[in-house]
Structure formats: structure tokens, C-alpha cells
């Protein structure tokens, strides 16, 4: 699975554990977005402020909090993750009320559907210990992929 949810930081450990316990290997994710923002090293030569600005503008990760100038670019990064990591599905786990993750989600889901990539989605509350529903949903999702792909 690719686990995506516009995670500013690391989500509760319980969330990650629950998903794995439910039978999903998380092969890629978007945890700690701020840390993975820049895609490569910022050139050390030249004007540092300019180089840093250019890096942020032109060589930064595609995330929900940014505007995609072209419609065709939407979901490019997610598809790339799925294809290159050999994932069989995507789990959307957004924190409650997280506008970037929740507003982006329907667009990404539509793109995944077009590419016939299965997905499931739920919200989690950052301070809750109630992981049982998440375990159930993730588990059912994993099972459904096993069952239906075997067919």
C-alpha cells in the first residue's frame, strides 16, 4: 500500500501499526511533508536566497497544499509512487478537518479509479486511541485486493 494523507508530521504510531497489523505493507507514504519537500540538494553556489526560492518553486514535492497549474499534473506523484514501489492499492488517511488532505482526496481518487488502482479512505483523529475501526477497514481492504486480484 501507499499511505497518503498530507501528513505534516508523523501520524500517531498507533495508526501506522494498526494498518500494518491489518495486513498492509506500507511501501511508500507522505509522512513529514516538510522534511520531504525539497526533491534534491539546493545548489551551494550562487545567491543562496535565490537558489532556495527556486528550489521551493520548481523542485519541490507535489502535495495537496500546492496548486497544480495544469489539470494533467494532478496525482502525478501518487501514481509514480504506486507504480515504482509496486503497490497494489492506496490508503487515504486524513486527519479530521485537514482541508488540504480532504479537499484533494476526491481528485486523487478519481485519477486512481481511471488507472484501475484500488483505494480506501478514512479519517483519523490525532488524539484518539480508537484504532479498531481503522484496523477493520484496512483489513477488509487488504482482503478484498487479495480476493479480487486472485480471480
Amino acid at each position: 500500500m501507499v499511505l497518503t494523507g498530507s501528513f505534516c508530521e508523523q501520524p500517531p504510531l498507533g495508526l501506522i501499526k494498526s494498518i500494518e497489523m491489518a495486513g498492509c505493507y506500507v511501501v511508500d507514504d507522505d509522512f513529514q511533508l516538510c522534511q520531504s519537500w525539497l526533491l534534491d540538494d539546493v545548489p551551494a553556489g550562487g545567491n543562496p536566497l535565490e537558489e532556495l526560492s527556486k528550489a521551493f518553486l520548481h523542485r519541490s514535492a507535489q502535495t495537496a497544499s500546492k496548486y497544480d497549474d495544469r489539470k494533467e499534473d494532478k496525482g502525478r506523484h501518487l501514481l509514480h509512487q504506486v507504480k515504482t514501489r509496486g503497490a497494489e492499492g492506496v490508503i487515504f488517511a486524513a486527519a479530521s478537518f485537514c482541508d488540504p488532505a480532504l479537499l484533494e482526496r476526491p481528485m486523487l481518487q478519481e485519477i486512481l479509479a481511471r488507472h484501475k488502482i484500488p483505494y480506501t479512505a478514512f479519517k483519523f483523529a490525532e488524539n484518539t486511541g480508537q484504532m479498531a475501526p481503522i484496523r477493520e477497514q484496512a483489513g477488509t481492504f487488504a482482503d478484498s485486493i487479495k480476493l479480487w486480484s486472485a480471480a
Partner: protein
Amino acid sequence: MSTVTAKKQVVKEDAMLLQKELINRNYHEVATAHNEGRKISATFVPGNLNELLMCFDFARRLPETDALQNGMRKKSGKMIMDAERDGHSEDVCTYVKTDLGMMLQGEVGPTGEPMPHPDILLLSYTGCFTFMKWFELVRQKYDCPTVMLHVPYQGDGRINPAMRRYVVDQLKQKVIPALESVSGVKFDIDRLREYMKESVKAEEDLVAVLQTAKQRPSPIDGYFGAVYYIGPIFTAFRGVPEATRYYQVLKEEVFERMRSGKGPVTPEGELAEEKYRLVVEGPPNWTSFRDFWKMFYDEGAVVVASTYSKVGGVYDFGFRHDPEHPLESLADYCLGCYTNLNFPQRIDMICRYMDEYQADGLLINSIKSCNSFSAGQLLILREVEKRTGKPAAFIESDLVDPRYFSGANIKNRLESYFQMIKQKRSSSENVHRH
């Protein structure tokens, strides 16, 4: 108590009727645009470049106002649920879901007339991230050409020249060319100037109207009434002569009320005795708009100033569109919308209103689905209380989702708040011996 004919159940004034005409006519224009060979644009109220769009003969849609129209007509509930079934989260902005839900039902607008999909989305990103995603969603689903205008947030509480230049450059290099391309009309800056001259007149009159609330008693309600007054200027009519006329008529009506020492006209009738004067922060609830207003009316409460009536432009602190520098002026207009102001600016505005409009207190209507307004409202509340020494109250509802309006709870909190103010007043008159 009715000021108009007795057979009308809800009390209305001439300006109100004029405004309704304007709105209906616009819906009709949008419905027939394609047949007349015109294109349709869509943009947001904060940062709406109406004069610019008129230069390209667009029939103009503002999806937010469609959402609130649907809300007031009690159609939004179903639209929101349709959108949620289509995969949109319960947590997100209900304007967005109402619009997407409406579009799922086909190309029909709030009045029942056709509402074709827009030919261009002018995505003016003026402080509200959700709005940016809104047009991404519409673009994705309905394949509408989109041009994005990035208005920098006033993080430092002021507009610096670089910010203005950035917006003007985008207008010149991206926005105008895109509008030309879609509409087929060449940009004429003089035409823009003419529209702006018209806008200024309307802006003057609007401000004059809003500021009558400084009187005791206030002849207007600066929240419930004001959302009607800002309608034309915040939407498809700024720069249009009919709108200017509307504001002239409105101003005359309001000034007449002021001269007679009358209170505002409400759907329940004229407010006879002004008991409480409030400043309100936050958008109103549209699905129970009249019930909500009645709660104030029943207590003799008038809103003298509000921040939501500045969401589409702040005109009462001096800004006017400037035909001499049209593009810079458009930039300044966008940069100055309430949603693009930082917290200190918002707090300053509220404190200024509390003082200049002699308010008894602040009321915050916190909208469940609107992070743009809600984030930080408790901070605003505490800070305003501290600075003004006046009490503040906090109620919760939503824009257009009827499930999140609990009349009983809101009434309970409002009544407690008004009684609190009343108690404070009488305690400074009596000294209680305990």
C-alpha cells in the same frame, strides 16, 4: 409596523426589490449567455475582479452566491449530501459541497433557470485555501479552463510594493491574456477605467450607508441587513450603472430612516427599540437566516458593524478603486479583502468598530465548515475582550448545511449573552449588598 403595503407578509423596502431584480436579471443573463454568443466566467467574492471581467463581455457567475442562494431557498441540504455521497468529506466547506452537489444535478441554477458550466474559472486566491481547491475540483470534473491569480497574504499586516507588482505582473502576463483567449475580446484598459469610475461612486455610497450605523439608534443592521447591501458590489455588479443606481436609492432610503431616528427594517418589522449594539465576526447562517435574525430582533439587538460585510473588499477604511492606476488598483483591492488580512489587522478592525460604532460587545459566529474564518476566532475573542473591556460571546453554526444549525442552542447562548450585558449595565447602576 410594516413600512410597505400591508399585503406583504415579509417587510421589504425599495432598495431590496431593486436588488432582487439585479440578481434575477444576472441569473437570466447567465442562463442565456451561450445563446447570445457570450462566454461565462466564474470567480470568488474575495478578490472578484468584476470590472476586469466586464471588459471581456463575460456573463458572470459567483459560485459562493449560488451556494448561499441555494441555502436560503433550502435546497443546499440535499446538494451537500449528494456531494458527500460523491466522495467529499463531511468536514469541508459547505459552499464547495453545495456547488458541487448542484452541478451533479445538471446545469441548473438556484432560480431553476439553466446554469451552464463556466467557460473560464478565474481562480483568485485571496486568502482562502479552500477556494483554491474548489476550482481545482471543478476544473478536474468539468474540464473548465482555469487561470490562477495568486494574491499574497498580508502576513506583515501591510501591502509592500513587491506584492503589488507581483499581482499586477500576473494580471498582465497571465490573467488578461487568458481572458482574451477565452472570450475572443481584446483588452481595452480605457474600458476598465470607465467601469472603475462607476465603481467608485457605488463604493462611496456603500460606505456612507454602512457608517450610518454609528448613529443611535442605528438605521441599519450591519450584518443581516448588510449582507443584502454588499450583494451588488461584491458580485457581478460593481462597475455597472444599475448597481450605482441601487446604491443611490439605498443611501437615500437609509438616510431618510436616519433622519427620522428609525431603527432598521427586518423581516419581522421595524425594530422599535434598540437595546443592544453588537459587532459580529464571522459569516452568517443562510439556511436559517430569518430565524437567526429574529433571535436578535426579539431581544432588540442590532448589529452595528460586521467583518463578513468586508469579505469582498474593505471600503470603509479609505480604499477606492482608482481609474488612474487600474491594474495597481485591482491589486490593492484584492490584497485588502478581509480574508487576506492577518490576525492583528482583523483584531484592529474589530476593536475599531467596537469603538467607532459604540458597540456593547462582540459576537462571534463560528462556522463549522469554514476554517478560513474559524481558525483563531477564540484568540480574536480573548484579545478583543482584553483590549476593549467589553464582553464577547461565541456561537456555532454553519453556512449552508442545515444539520449544523441548532436554533435552541444558539438562542440559549444568545439570551444568556444579552442578559449578561443587561446585568452588567444594571450592576454599574446599583450596588448589590451581599
